[in-house]
């Protein structure tokens, strides 16, 4: 409903042209096969993808499993060289204060939540460092704008994944189902099934402080710091095709390979 399929994939337009019945039959079969692959891939991803929306507000535990506070935010460092930024810290709310804990001390998974590796974790200063993005504050629910300035969607979820050497930001989920998942019961919120994902590599920048002639969006950046009001893609709204589960899985493997060796 919110994100019509035709809106997303240029393939759909192609469908309309395929009038010959044999073509149509083949199409249906292909679609079914693709859906099946997607659902398989989605199921496999269920364990490895971490949903930010499901984690925010949950307890952060110490090695003994006791709650020490609630997860407020996850910080990644986003520079021009990283297409999938690594998690550098988490923000924990404990006894009325926000504490920033370096990612080095943190384990994260969709099944067991966020856990500290040691009883005494090093808490660093709360100042935002250059290039740092607070995913819940700056990305989740913010406006995503195409390269042509057309508003597209607001992310319903942000996906992270454990790769060798840490946790990385994979992409943003824009599917309606993810939206419903967040509106649903707490139990269901942990069941991450990616449906429509925009690869983080597609995202060019935060919406600049002052947009070109078309509008005035982004003025909140003045107030909210360097990262402000939303995300801008490097493709136009019409050209955007969201990744399906199978593609996400492929991207994930690729991301895993990349982080094995130091990239040039």
């Amino acid at each position, binding site marked *: 409903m*919110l*994100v*019509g399929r035709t*809106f997303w994939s240029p393939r759909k337009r192609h469908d309309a042209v395929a009038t010959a019945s044999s073509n149509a039959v083949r199409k249906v079969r292909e679609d079914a096969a693709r859906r099946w692959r997607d659902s398989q891939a989605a199921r496999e991803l269920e364990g490895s993808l971490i949903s930010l929306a499901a984690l925010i507000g949950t307890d952060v535990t110490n090695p003994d499993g006791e709650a020490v506070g609630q997860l407020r935010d996850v910080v990644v460092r986003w520079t021009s060289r990283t297409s999938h930024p690594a998690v550098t810290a988490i923000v924990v709310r404990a006894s009325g204060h926000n504490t920033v804990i370096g990612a080095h001390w943190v384990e994260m998974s969709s099944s067991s939540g966020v856990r500290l590796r040691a009883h005494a974790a090093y808490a660093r200063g709360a100042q935002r460092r250059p290039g740092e993005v607070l995913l819940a504050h700056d990305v989740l*629910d*913010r*406006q*995503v704008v195409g390269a042509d300035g*057309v*508003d*597209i*969607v*607001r992310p*319903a979820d942000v996906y992270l994944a454990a790769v060798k050497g840490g946790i990385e930001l994979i992409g943003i989920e824009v599917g309606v189902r993810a*939206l419903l998942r*967040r*509106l649903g019961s707490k139990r269901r919120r942990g069941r991450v099934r990616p449906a429509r994902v925009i690869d983080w590599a597609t995202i060019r920048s935060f919406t600049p402080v002052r947009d070109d002639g078309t*509008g*005035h*969006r*982004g*003025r*909140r950046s*003045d*107030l*909210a710091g360097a990262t402000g*009001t939303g995300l801008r893609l490097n493709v136009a*709204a019409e050209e955007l095709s969201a990744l399906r589960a199978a593609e996400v899985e492929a991207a994930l493997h690729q991301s895993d390979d990349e982080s094995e060796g130091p990239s040039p």
Partner: protein
Amino acid sequence: MSVIDAPAHGSARRPPHALKRVLGLLAILGPGLIAANAGNDAGGILTYASAGAEFGYRTLFLMVLITVALVVVQEMCARLGAYTGEGLGALIREEFSLRSGASAMVLLFVANAGLTVSEFAGVGASMEIFGVSRYIAVPIALVAIWAVTVLGNYTRAERVFLVMGLVFLAYPVSAFLAHPHASAVFSNLLWPHFLHSKAFLLLSVALIGTTITPYMQFYLTSAVVDKGVTPETYKGERIDTVNGAILSDVVSIFIIIATAAAIGGSGALTSAAQAASALRPVAGASAEQLFAVGLLGASLLAATVVPLSTAYAIAETAGAERSLSRKLSEAPLFYGLLTTQLVVGAAVALLPGNAVELVVNAQVLNGFITPVLLTYILILANRRSVLGSAANGPRFRALATVCVAVVSVLSAVVLVQTVAGWL
């Protein structure tokens, strides 16, 4: 879509100073005036007329208070739009939660659907005074509204609707010609003469509900964004908003005075013809026709603004493109929602009998949304993280808090009353 394109021709001919100022004022007619005036829709006019007929001048002081509250609320909304570049729906999702945003949208959608039906019913009723069947009038109105919003020049259309609404300026004239008790009017305006009765309380709350309605706040914020108002140009928008709110309430006050002077104390209104009879001092025998023209303009304006507010709010909560300056294909969700509300609203308005009444009852939901929405607006406008230096100062904050609290409590009262009445 710029509303500031009108005064350009004025500078070439170098009009005298006063004329220039008037032109300048007309040029900034915009979202503020539209939003507030949409509040004077068919339901609003009948409520004001009813207040005059049943309680004479006694509700006037309340109207003054309502005007203050309306100005305060609308100003906060316009400011939020201008400084954040985002509508209320988007701000609620970002600053509160997805859940709050989603539930606000569901309630707004249902309540506005009910309102749209009653606006189309108003179109039908006013054209029937001219002997045109509503089965002809309503479809034509539907096509016209759809065409100007989706295909045509909305800014021009909104001025046409506003001018039609100006017919209600006949009420002030009528009010003077009916020779109301000047002293009674002024003492009622300046000092409360409230009655301690259930009927008076219910009517008071109805007055608040029809003057401060959620769609007005959603529409204003989004329209300010769509118009492209920035903090630099906010000054003009603020004048538009404050003037619009005051002007529309002054008209409401005169409707009460004119009706009170003509048929005051005759009990509750039973028909639109009675409401029209208050225009007799101006129009004589053709009072009813004059009333019908005004009712038509008001209904058309509201039938445009209400679905627009739904479309803006839901599209921005979802993050989809929403702007009247976009093409149909560029903002499918926005125009889809707009079209759906218009078509369904017009269709239900043409259904015979109880269906209309049932749907119109959905407006009661507004009594539920208003307190929550006003609280959100207040919190947002107080937040420095949202508005920076434009956030509410301490004095404005105190005033706004009182306004929001009073309106909220009274809205809650009518909600409880209505629901209890159903059970």
